[in-house]
């Protein structure tokens, strides 16, 4: 996911407090220069916006390993694996989880 200025701004205040002029049918025109404030809220600085978008992107990117792990966890029938392990004195569930964690380490 690529975060945008719009993604950052919607998280600052609720309601239609901002918009963009000169869209001309292009999402690429949702820029700081075209930003317009509809409410009494203060217009955030361009540097704050730039930093805010970067922070959102960093948080998202930093969770890539977790999203990948979860997708692979979801492929396992974990309840059945745990039941079988108890019945058979095996460690298939723990082994599978460890394998996924090792393949996608936390940065």
């Amino acid at each position, binding site marked *: 996911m690529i975060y945008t200025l*719009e*993604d950052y701004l*919607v*998280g600052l*205040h*609720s*309601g*239609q*407090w*901002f*918009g*963009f002029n000169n*869209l001309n*049918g*292009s*999402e690429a*025109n*949702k820029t700081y220069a075209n930003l317009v404030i*509809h409410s009494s809220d203060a217009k955030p600085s361009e540097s704050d916006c730039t930093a805010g978008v970067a922070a959102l992107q960093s948080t998202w990117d930093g969770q890539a390993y977790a999203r990948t792990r979860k997708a692979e966890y979801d492929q396992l029938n974990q309840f059945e694996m745990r039941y079988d392990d108890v019945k058979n004195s095996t460690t298939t569930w723990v082994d599978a989880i460890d394998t996924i964690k090792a393949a996608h380490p936390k940065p």
Partner: protein
Amino acid sequence: MAIVINGSGTVTGLAVGGLPDGTVDAGTLATNSVDSAELINGAVDNDHMAGMAASKLTGALPAISGASLTGVGITEADQWRLTTDFEGTVTTIASNLERNDTDFDKIGTGVSHSSGLFSFPSTGKWWVILNAAAKFDEAEWLQYSLERSTNSSTTIDTNLGAEAWIGGHLEVSNGGYRTGTCQVIIDVTNISNMRVRFRTQGSGLTRGKTTKNETTFTFIKLGET
């Protein structure tokens, strides 16, 4: 045969075609004296028909191109959309609105709005449709509704009874994307003071784009009031 002017006010002896061309004008003919027997088949062309009473259109009618008809079919259709996302409750979706301009052109005059209060170009029964696209986190929800004003202002006198409730899934960390539709057929009896608006309340992200339809507002005139 000799032409004889009789003392009784008549002329006899005149052969068919015996008068010079162009000498009999409309005034020479008695009113209501020419019937269809005096007309050649096909002699009445388009330029010589002033109009036709609706009562004459009976029986088996010929195929008529729709392009030749007026007052039938859809006479008004318009579509607006939200261009920019917003979060949470909005009493009137008032800004960041544009007419759909992606392979679309309105039919008729189209509706207009001032600060989110939409007015109609003509009276009639209008189908008004809000289609909302939203994104939710866990346990968030939004209620969309259509409301009416009959005094040209932001004073709303009735909720039109058209609501859509959509929300995030409780069992996942990110509720994901949902759409909801609410719609009403409203009898617009006065275009000078009747308005509709769209509102939402709750928590969640209402989505809008300028390049495509996400949250849209559609107006179609179905018939006369």
